């Protein structure tokens, strides 16, 4: 019964690679040749008694965009938040396995999570600027890291805003409240804010899901531009987006990493049946 009804659904346009890709993705060979920025080894994660991630092993190559896709609740956001240990904020959580950043473990009680988070920036699903001025938002990271001096901070703020492709829009309103910016501007401000601490990894948790198509497109352009300087990991439930911006894609389902590979490969020739079903829109 169920089988029959799903068969009726159109399959054709949902395969995302049918869209022309403006920005060239890195090839599988290129990915394989790059040093791993982050390598995750047999990662298990628990919220209390509930296991949210089981046995995830994944390489994240340097200066590439890695997209994490999968249906709601599949563990992709949890995985992302393991990479800068934001899950530490939640009571009753437990993590097993290993995460290596540049050859050093980031798990374990001896790691300085504060320093880790300065190197692994994060952008959230819903833009969350501080209720302060544009300038203060971007300057906050360097400030809490001990950077003093208005001129130094100003330079960092300018540079970060330029990189986040926001400078031209806000250079005359640096002292206005960040909450007065539009939704898309707020999200780019959050990206600039993350860049200001000079990270080398940028985590993005569905950064465009609350934005209109035009703003989404700007964010995607930005991600592509940032790729050469930063290693980017992006969670998205929009497969087209994953296909448009990422070099590597990892598909999560029910807490497990089902399949990971170069984006071209994964979308054109998935190895696993579940991946195929998901990217063709049979479930999720």
């Amino acid at each position: 019964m169920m089988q029959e009804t799903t068969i009726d659904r159109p399959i054709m346009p949902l395969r995302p690679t049918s869209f022309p890709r403006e920005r060239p993705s890195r090839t599988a060979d290129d990915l394989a040749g790059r040093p791993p920025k982050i390598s995750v080894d047999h990662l298990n994660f628990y919220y209390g008694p509930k296991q949210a991630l089981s046995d995830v092993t994944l390489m994240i190559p340097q200066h590439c965009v890695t997209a994490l896709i999968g249906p709601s609740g599949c563990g992709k956001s949890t995985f992302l938040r393991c990479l800068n240990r934001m899950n530490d904020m939640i009571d009753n959580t437990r993590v097993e396995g290993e995460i290596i950043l540049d050859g050093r473990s980031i798990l374990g009680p001896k790691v300085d999570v504060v320093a880790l988070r300065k190197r692994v920036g994060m952008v959230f699903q819903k833009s969350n600027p501080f209720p302060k001025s544009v300038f203060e938002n971007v300057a906050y990271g360097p400030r809490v890291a001990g950077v003093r001096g208005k001129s130094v901070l100003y330079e960092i703020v300018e540079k970060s805003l330029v990189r986040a492709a926001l400078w031209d829009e806000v250079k005359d309103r640096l002292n206005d409240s960040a909450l007065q910016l539009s939704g898309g501007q707020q999200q780019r401000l959050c990206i600039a804010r993350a860049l200001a601490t000079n990270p080398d990894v940028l985590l993005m948790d569905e950064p465009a899901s609350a934005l209109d198509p035009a703003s989404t497109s700007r964010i995607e352009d930005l991600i592509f531009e940032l790729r050469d300087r930063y290693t980017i990991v992006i969670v998205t439930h929009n497969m087209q987006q994953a296909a448009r911006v990422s070099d590597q894609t990892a598909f999560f389902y029910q807490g497990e990493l089902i399949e990971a590979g170069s984006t071209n490969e994964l979308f054109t020739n998935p190895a696993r049946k579940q991946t195929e079903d998901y990217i063709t829109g049979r479930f999720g």
Partner: protein
Amino acid sequence: MSNSVIDVAPHGRFGIEGQAVRPRRWGEQVIGVALFGCALVSILTTVGIVIVLVAEAAQFFREVSIWEFLTGTEWSPKLENKFGILPLLCGTLLVMAGAAVIALPIGLLSAIYLSEYASSSVREVVKPVLEVLAGIPSVVFGYLAIVTISPLVRTIFPSAGVFNAASASIVVGFMVLPMVVSLSEDILRAVPRSLREAAYALGATKLDVTVKVVVPAAISGIVAAFLLALSRAIGETMAVALAAGNRPTLTINPLDEVQTMTAYIVQVSQGDTPAGTLEYRTIFAVGLALFVTTMFLNVLAQWFVARVREKYE
């Protein structure tokens, strides 16, 4: 990249490299401990109350048996060395009961009105007014009890004395009224809208919905609000000390002069009772009784509040 401004602070300063051991961050730790200390003050307050009350009361009970204290029907520590707390307890409960008769029904009906009937503009006016009224000091109500309420009571019931439990009950009732309304209204409004709509969809009138759906759904919270009001009425001091009088009487007649536990403590504190005497220690024994009674009601109320939380979370 190396010449870009953003890199003025290189990773050596930001990074985790070379820092296998977590830096100590003394400042953070000191602040954490200080904040913990602030929270500890609240625990120490409770401990302090218990120690002070129990230590002095223990001295008192060395000379007066607990049995006599709890069952004696006369309280006359100064003149006759009679230490039965029943008259004080009776006075306290009499005033409390009178206050409850006023505050609970009026309070609940007002809360129902505000939550179920009133327009939001009415609510926006009445709620702040209630807040202000809740902030009027006890002594102001005491003044009103003596100057306004007591003469009124005596006009209606000529047998009443200048000081009587009824006047105290009336002012205490109106004192705790804002609290009953506020707490109950919050609880009633927390009842999910869907529940009301379900009842309306079945053809219920507003009365049916309120009495048979909303109030029963909120009953735990309402009981908690009532218990807190009773506890507040028992602990009420200045108004009662002014209005109810200073004669410990074992009576249930609201027109009689009575003395509450709180009023007794005030009476002794005002005199020049030397520390260390038996009379001085009665303050602590009575204080302990008062503390235990109100604590019992508060804990009970907390228990009901916890039940509400379970239901909606």
